[in-house]
């Protein structure tokens, strides 16, 4: 939640315009919904007047001097009817009206439900999700996954609440107010004026409150987040906390944050607790005015008692509509925040797109060239890669070494165009990768990541991830090359075994072999391996190493590696430092250079003394 109340009003106006444009698409549904409300409102007012008429009928029967009931729309019953008949008729009308209203209300709710649940929300969610999956990785790196998920769930709901909570509710509120006032004024104009003169004050109080509450609640959310963070850190780091004997310190830290939440809440409470009573009291003042002035009118036969009772009812409805203003304003603010976050996704530039006229190549052989490739993640970011030149002949294997953040993964990601270089070119078979059709390019590249995410689905589905229509034969062939076939068939349900979340029912080595099989399903000429053995235990490392050597046979391979065992298998090794290639050559050449590579490799190498001891044993055995 980076966007606070500081957003400029011009920004809000822009968002508002876009929200209106979005709503315009649903204008037909909105009009239907609104139409229902108009009828409902008319019936409601009409119905309200019945109890007043009944009172007047009774009163007229009891005290013949008082003015009779004012029947609406000239519906006065024939003079021959007794008051009892009139009462029966009124009750019947009340019931008919109520039944009609119930039906209309039902249709109204269904219409709103259909608009929101069956059209607006699913359509918007599909749109956001579709865009989301095409965004560059940077968006995913920059935003916490919870926040990204929220764009499709909560933020979309905030946006839709603009339609039903702001536009429709607002229109209904205004319409109701107009109708109420017209009706009341029709009954007695001066009384209406007297009763409503406080209303602007109510409006004023509501908007002041809304303005005050927003930053206060924002601050509250911040403090609560800090408090939760203090606790979650203490728990996530419980082992560190315990080993360093930090329990008391951690507790104090939490108590302090917890207290800050409570103390800030106190001030919110003081204001919150004033708001509702103040609004209610203003309504009550309105009623007092009505009783006093209205009572005087009744005494002077300028108004009937029944009308007064109806008036009181209307006044209460009027006030509750005015009070709903606060809710509408609040919803509006929420929907603006949500809209900002949803439109941010929808507007985000895709970065990489297929060119209008892509180069058609029947088959890629797999020669990869980097020509003075520089890359930065954004205009102000430092260069992640700087003038990298690299030539990988088809079918050869190049290993990349470097510290975290040296640009190793970035270098790989430029080939399938997860990013495009800021300057320079990446070529495959002599063609700039930007000139290929994007899907064609990516289908010619097999990818294995450091920690491969497998999905909660069957093993076969996971291997066929990039080729959903692959035959079982194709799947098995890929699994065999990746050395995964034997362990898969040894499982009870074989290829139909369903993986658990995070594939915890497999060992690290098995997971990576599945990932390699997945990368091979389309038999790509190019294979990119991003440090596939780092996250797994050494006992299963050799299984993955074997899978890797059979997978890389005949394919152009770029592999990010830290383990000597992998590095030794490469035809060529480059050492990246700060986005530049600082050492390059074969293992033997780099060992002779005695540079960074030498230090890292020597640490992992077996020392001559140990080997001698081992040899000695073998010799005597």
């Amino acid at each position, binding site marked *: 939640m980076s966007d606070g109340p500081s957003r400029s009003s011009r920004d809000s106006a822009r968002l508002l315009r876009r929200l209106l444009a979005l709503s315009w698409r649903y204008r037909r549904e909105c009009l239907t919904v609104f139409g229902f409300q108009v009828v409902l409102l008319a019936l409601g007012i009409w119905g309200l007047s019945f109890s007043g008429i009944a009172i007047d009928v009774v009163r007229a029967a009891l005290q013949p001097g008082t003015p009779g009931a004012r029947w609406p729309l000239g519906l006065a019953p024939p003079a021959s009817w007794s008051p009892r008949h009139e009462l029966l008729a009124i009750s019947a009308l009340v019931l008919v009206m109520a039944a009609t209203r119930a039906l209309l209300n039902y249709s109204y709710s269904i219409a709103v439900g259909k608009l929101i649940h069956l059209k607006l929300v699913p359509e918007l969610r599909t749109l956001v999700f579709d865009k989301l999956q095409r965004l560059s990785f940077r968006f995913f790196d920059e935003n916490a996954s919870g926040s990204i998920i929220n764009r499709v769930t909560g933020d979309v709901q905030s946006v839709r609440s603009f339609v039903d909570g702001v536009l429709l509710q607002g229109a209904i509120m205004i319409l109701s107010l107009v109708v109420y006032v017209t009706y009341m004024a029709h009954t007695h104009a001066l009384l209406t004026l007297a009763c409503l003169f406080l209303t602007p004050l109510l409006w004023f109080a509501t908007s002041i409150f809304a303005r005050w509450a927003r930053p206060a609640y924002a601050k509250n959310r911040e403090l609560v987040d800090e408090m939760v963070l203090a606790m979650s850190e203490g728990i996530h780091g419980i082992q560190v906390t315990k080993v360093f004997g930090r329990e008391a310190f951690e507790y104090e830290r939490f108590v302090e944050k917890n207290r800050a939440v409570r103390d800030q809440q106190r001030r919110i409470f003081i204001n919150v607790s004033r708001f509702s*009573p103040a609004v209610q009291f203003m309504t009550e003042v309105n009623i007092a005015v009505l009783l006093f002035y209205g009572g005087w009118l009744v005494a002077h036969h300028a108004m009937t008692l029944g009308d007064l009772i109806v008036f009181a009812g209307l006044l209460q409805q009027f006030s509750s509509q005015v009070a709903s203003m606060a809710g509408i304003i609040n919803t509006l603010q929420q929907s603006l925040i949500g809209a900002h976050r949803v439109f941010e996704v929808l507007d985000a530039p895709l970065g990489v797109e297929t060119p209008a006229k892509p180069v058609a190549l029947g088959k890629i052989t797999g020669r990869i060239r980097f020509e003075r490739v520089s890359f930065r993640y954004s205009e102000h970011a430092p260069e992640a890669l700087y003038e990298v030149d690299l030539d990988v002949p088809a079918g050869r294997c190049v290993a990349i070494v470097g510290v975290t953040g040296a640009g190793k993964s970035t270098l790989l990601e430029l080939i399938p165009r997860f990013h495009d270089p800021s300057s320079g070119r990446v070529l495959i078979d002599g063609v700039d990768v930007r000139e290929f059709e994007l899907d064609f390019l990516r289908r010619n590249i097999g990818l294995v990541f450091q920690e491969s995410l497998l999905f909660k689905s069957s093993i076969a589905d996971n291997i066929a991830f990039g080729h959903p229509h692959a035959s079982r034969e194709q799947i098995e062939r890929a699994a065999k090359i990746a050395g995964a076939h034997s362990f898969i068939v040894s499982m009870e349900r074989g290829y139909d075994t369903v993986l658990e979340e995070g594939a915890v029912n497999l060992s690290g080595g098995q997971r990576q072999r599945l990932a390699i099989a997945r990368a091979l399903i389309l038999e790509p000429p190019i294979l990119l391996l991003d440090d596939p053995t780092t996250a797994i235990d050494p006992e299963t490392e050799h299984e993955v190493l074997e899978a890797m050597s059979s997978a890389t046979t005949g394919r152009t391979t770029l592999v990010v590696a830290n383990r000597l065992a992998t590095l030794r298998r490469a035809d060529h090794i480059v050492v990246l430092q700060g986005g530049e290639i600082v050492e390059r050559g074969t293992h033997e050449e780099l060992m002779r250079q005695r540079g960074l590579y030498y230090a890292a490799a020597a*640490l992992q190498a077996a020392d001559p003394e140990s080997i001698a001891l081992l040899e000695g044993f073998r010799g005597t055995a």
Partner: protein
Amino acid sequence: MSLDKSKPRAGKDTQQPPLDFAVIRRVFAYTKSYARLRNTLILLVVTRSIQTPLVIWAIAAVISGPIARQDPHGTLLGVAGFLALAAFTEFCFIYRSRLALRLGEAVVHDLRNEIYAHLLALPMSFFKRTQIGRLIGRVTADVDAVRVGVQDVAFVSTVQGGNMLISALLMLYYDWKLFLVVLTMAPILRLMIGHFRVKLSEAYRQQSESFSRVTATLAESVNGIREIQGFVRQDVNGGLFGQLIYDHSKYNMSSARHSAVFLPLLEFNGQLFLAILLVVGGYQAIGHDVPLKALIQFLFLSNAFFSAIPTIGNQYNQALTAMAGAERVFALLDTTPDWKDAADAIALPPLDGKVEFREVSFGYLPGKTVLHEVSFAAEPGMTVALVGETGSGKSSIVNLAAKLYLPNSGAILLDGRDIRGVTSESLHKQIGSVTQDNFLFSGSVLENIRLGRPQASDEEVRAAAAALGVADLIEDLPGGFRAAVGEKGSGLSLGQRQVICFARAMLADPRILILDEATSSVDALTEARLQGALAKLLRGRTSFVVAHRLSTIRHADLVLVLAHGRVVERGSHRDLLAHGGRYASMYRQFVSSIDV
């Protein structure tokens, strides 16, 4: 994303538990420290439950009394009385809601502190078997449910109940027969609300289940974005997700349908009652059996009476949610620690550093022993390397040495003293550790290093980093030692995080040091860089080094080779290689893997 549509989880019971008064009493007990606040509040609640119907009564009384009598003077008096009553009512309302909010917040504040203190006192075994997300949920969602219970449900439902009672009494007073007519409506309403509550809660359950499928799929897509784009799955995925979304919207619609029936029915019910009242009351009024005054009162009071019913129904639902939250919170507070320091435990005097395991057996779960009668002795200053496959018990040994767990049988001795007899706190002061997780707290680098010795000055922190030879790596960060560390160490690379953890252990200057896979997640170049720091850190301390990579352990004084929780070989690196056993064959495999 799930590649197939998973089916809704079946068999989850839809029956909500009824209100449990033991839980309510326990929540109530938390208000004890705020007795004055609470008692004032109760007084205000009682006052308010009488006031609200009285305000309505006053309106009706003015209309049916002086106004109907056409008595302007009486009207004025009546209106003045009404205003005074209204003002007093709203005044009480201010304090009613303010104090309720305050009381709820106070209770929740105390509850949170208690939960956290309780959690910190629980031994590691608890955290091993509990999902951390759930624990956080206790403190956020569940405690918040309790807050709503205290701030809202308790008082709103009392006020509403009071309103019903007083309105009923007033109506009884005006005309008991007419009131009986009112009363006949109550069971219908009650039944209707009950019926729809069951339907709606079932619909909500289905809705939230399908929603959790949506979010689970979303989470998988967000985490697997590299796979999705890399394997060109966007279209397939979009289709699957679209199906899920429309599936979910159907459930939304079905619960919308229920409320679309329920709410108009509720309103219709009110109108039905009005019609009955007008006929029955009107007939009687004309026949002089009921005064007009009473009829007018009924119009107003019955409204107050009935409008309380849905509100109370709503509150009941919230009360159930609050109670479920409270139950989970109390269940957490009631977990007893598996073990505590012995009552007569003493503080550990400064150690030389001899560590001895005597026939130690241990398991994290009952019946699953991970260490079998492990015995060994490490003299002060020795480096002990633990080697073996994943799950062979290496980490268990170091966790036991740090008294994060207690052995099931056997003894662990430090300088000849059984660690069962010493306090955990004094023991932890003399132990330091660097693990693979390299957990950092949000704050600054300085604060994180100082974790090892909170009273250390800035200079001492720098000196510790300098002694390890890594001060330059920290100075290179933006802000140097004051560089910000984000949540879970974000903003720093793995290597940088590990450097800070090394410095933290160095500053703590412990007698006993544990390195559990300390460099295995670090890249090759950084690992080479940290090798020197590692040697400096080990110097002069009794250390345990757990490592996957055989290349890092050849300088150990003692190598323990573990298999399935037993020590199968022990000796120095050279002796073991010369001996030609399991260690030698592991080493041979390692050599052959790097020797192409």
